[in-house]
């Protein structure tokens, strides 16, 4: 069985858990799945085993805490510690895929915004000036920025797994975080000066480029 089938079965089986056991198990599931550098197949296999065990035990009136202990985070860390990591080849492919998606979205939005500004507000023109130097610099600044933000979100989600967090506080945290990250990207775009070779390209070039990059990224994704 591959990981996709295991996930599907897991989703169905989880419904048989009692509310208390479900809360315990789902926290563990999210926490373990968020350990992003672990092999997916092995991760889903152990998750399905834990669920089967819990269902069997539940039938005999036991609770999740009795089976896995009352320190779920510690237990999950133990499991994660024993899971094999992602193979390097997969890791590289996933990295390439991430970059391609990033460039695809970046290029597509570029073209789209240009089209909207031009046709809806009469601003700018069909053609857009691109400076190779600044484009490259912007790319190399925003990529690590994006990775950093991604890492922060994952760490926050992992941290929040086994605790009760005020919903309003959580909303505020995400809101401030969202504003700050958008602000950071805009700052990068704004403060990088124009330099390097100048090109004039029509907006549909960016749209097309975005689509091609996206399809390539999809191809790479299927290889992973």
């Amino acid at each position, binding site marked *: *069985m591959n990981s996709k089938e295991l996930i599907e079965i897991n989703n169905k089986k989880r419904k048989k858990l009692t509310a208390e056991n479900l809360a315990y198990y789902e926290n563990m599931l999210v926490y373990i799945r968020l350990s992003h550098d672990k092999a997916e197949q092995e991760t889903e296999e*152990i998750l399905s*085993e834990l669920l*089967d*065990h819990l269902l069997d035990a539940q039938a005999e009136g036991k609770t999740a805490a009795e089976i896995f202990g009352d320190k779920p985070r510690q237990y999950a860390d*133990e*499991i994660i510690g024993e*899971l094999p990591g992602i193979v390097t080849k997969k890791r590289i492919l996933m990295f390439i895929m991430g970059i391609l998606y990033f460039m695809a979205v970046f290029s597509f939005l570029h073209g789209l915004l240009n089209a909207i500004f031009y046709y809806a507000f009469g601003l700018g023109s069909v053609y857009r000036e691109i400076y190779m130097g600044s484009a490259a610099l912007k790319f190399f600044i925003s990529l690590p920025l994006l990775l950093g933000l991604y890492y922060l979100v994952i760490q926050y989600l992992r941290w929040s797994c086994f605790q009760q967090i005020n919903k309003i506080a959580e909303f505020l945290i995400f809101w401030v975080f969202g504003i700050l990250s958008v602000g950071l990207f805009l700052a990068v775009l704004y403060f990088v000066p124009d330099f390097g070779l100048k090109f004039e390209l029509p907006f549909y070039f960016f749209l097309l480029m975005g689509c091609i990059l996206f399809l390539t990224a999809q191809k790479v994704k299927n290889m992973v």
Partner: protein
Amino acid sequence: MAIINQETVYGYELSLKLQNYGLKVSEGSIYPVLLRLQKEGLIKGEFKNSPNGPDRKYYFITKQGINALEEFRNNWEKIKVPVDLLLYKEQIP
């Protein structure tokens, strides 16, 4: 591992069997151990139909595992008698 050597089992079965032998381990603690044994190639897991219920991952021992078990048994035999002697010295006439 001695249990897996006798027959292929799945997780829940294994925890019940350990309890039957009188080992009071927490049920969940077998999974990190199973993962480690798999990583070291001493056991292998495979999804199979179970007679009652869904497909389960059954564990069976590998050749390497049999060797490791044999080695462990030898080491255990070597220390068992001396340790018993040390601990229960006064009871031996």
